[in-house]
């Protein structure tokens, strides 16, 4: 018997061809999106590049920004990044604890506790965050409670985000099925053990990715704390140098770039966390 020499690669099946087409289509789309992004970014840069353009006999000049001012003040503004991240991290920690307590409290069969949680959420969601920050910083001293700007900010942001995030945790708690609770009770757990060992760990897994989103939102809302004038985060620094030298345009653009880049970086980690959490599980 002669064995046929295998020289030609095996022919592609129709399924292979269809699959390849789908992969190509997907890749073409993402490449298109990336190119378009860069075009828009280039346009934005061009808009602020003070370039002269002549169309027929009309001459335009795009917006001029003072590079020297930015270079000079960059270190001052940039040093606010860590303050911004610090405030956001402290506030999100505080908010997470509050949100979990508020969500658990809403499961309570004891009316005052249930009422306390709904009251808190309603009050905080019914008033502006800006007002809350001023309340802790400006209004409390009138009754003798004087908080440093940083703590007033963290308290206000934490309370505010805690109220909103309690909904995330509530959804997390209700995502844990009735069967899980019954299985826990059936092996003899007390309701407390059931919450601690079975329900809350599963709810937290559900709630971690959206909490990452809240942190990213918090990074930007922390700019409101600059209004107290005592927390030297990004926004405060940008407005300080911008106003002093009447270079608000440059200062705010610089701060905006910092916020944007921070958001991009944290969003990247957030989406990685999300895919990791969604894998496995059930």
């Amino acid at each position, binding site marked *: 018997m002669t064995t046929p020499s295998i020289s030609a690669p095996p022919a592609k099946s129709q399924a292979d061809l269809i699959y390849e087409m789908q992969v190509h289509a997907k890749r073409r789309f993402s490449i298109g999106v990336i190119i378009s992004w860069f075009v828009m970014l280039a346009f934005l840069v061009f808009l602020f590049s003070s370039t002269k353009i002549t169309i027929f006999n009309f001459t335009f000049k795009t917006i001029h920004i003072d590079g020297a001012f930015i270079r000079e003040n960059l270190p001052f503004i940039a040093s606010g990044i860590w303050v911004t991240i610090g405030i956001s991290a402290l506030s999100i920690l505080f908010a997470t604890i509050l949100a979990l307590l508020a969500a658990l409290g809403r499961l309570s069969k004891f009316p005052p506790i249930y009422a306390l949680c709904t009251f808190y959420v309603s009050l905080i969601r019914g008033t502006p965050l800006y007002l809350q920050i001023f309340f802790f910083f400006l209004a409390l001293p009138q009754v003798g409670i004087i908080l440093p700007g940083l703590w007033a900010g963290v308290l206000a942001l934490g309370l505010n985000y805690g109220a909103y995030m309690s909904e995330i945790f509530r959804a997390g708690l209700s995502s844990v*099925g009735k*069967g*899980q609770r*019954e*299985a*826990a*009770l*059936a*092996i*003899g*757990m*007390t309701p407390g*053990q059931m919450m601690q*060992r*079975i329900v809350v*760990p*599963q709810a937290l*897994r559900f709630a971690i990715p959206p909490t990452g989103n809240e942190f990213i939102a918090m990074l930007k809302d922390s700019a409101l704390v600059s209004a107290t004038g005592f927390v030297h985060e990004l926004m405060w620094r940008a407005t300080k140098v911008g106003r002093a030298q009447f270079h608000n345009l440059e200062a705010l653009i610089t701060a905006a770039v910092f916020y944007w880049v921070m958001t991009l970086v944290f969003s990247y980690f957030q989406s990685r966390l999300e895919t990791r959490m969604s894998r*496995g*599980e*059930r």
Partner: protein
Amino acid sequence: MAPIIKITHLAKFFGRLQVLKDVSLEVNSQEVVCIIGRSGAGKSTLLRCINFLEEPSFGDIEVDGLCVSGGKKTKEQRELIHEIRLRTGMVFQEFNLFPHMSVLENVMEGPVTVKKMDRASAQKIAEMNLERVGMSFKKNDYPNRISGGQKQRVAIARALAMEPKVMLFDEPTSALDPELIGEVLAVMKSLAHDGTTMLVVTHEMEFARDAANRVIVMHEGELVEQGTPAQVFDHPENVHTQALVERYRSGKTSQPSD
């Protein structure tokens, strides 16, 4: 010898709907009792009243000498209910394994958290019970990595690890693909063979016939007939039992679950 389970004049309402009407029942030590009946007959509710996953409306539940009456609960009675849950093991239709724990951790969870056993002893007990249901080889996997039949076997091991006086099975094979039912029934048969006291709600007539000492037939919230498998399947007296057996004989061994 006193019965392990003694139910007297149990009634249960869901809103205005009465799903159990004056049910009385005893299960003795080492007895295997199967409850059969159409979907909606109240079989599962009856079973769930025994460990108070459903609150009985009226009547008494006595498990291993601990008696709790229906209606409002005092603190003392809540403690009795907890004690009853410790002495009963339950296997659910939907397995209800804890998805955030490995197979081994699922089985260790009761001994560690509830019995406050040290981890080494708990692990020994867990491994022994996984061996018993033939699931040791998957002990480090998470529940999402194993089949439905394997999940149910782990769930059985989890209940056994608490060393209950009686095992309650709530349609343990109704959520399984047909080819996976056999392995679970085989485990249950081996438990029955070892003298485990079992109360099984099932649509598996074959199993009831082979493994049960006694078969109970329910219809619309009442016990309509009980006896040995031979009596119930070969000489049914009640019309509802006759209809049930007839349908079984004509080849429909399982029905959609409640």
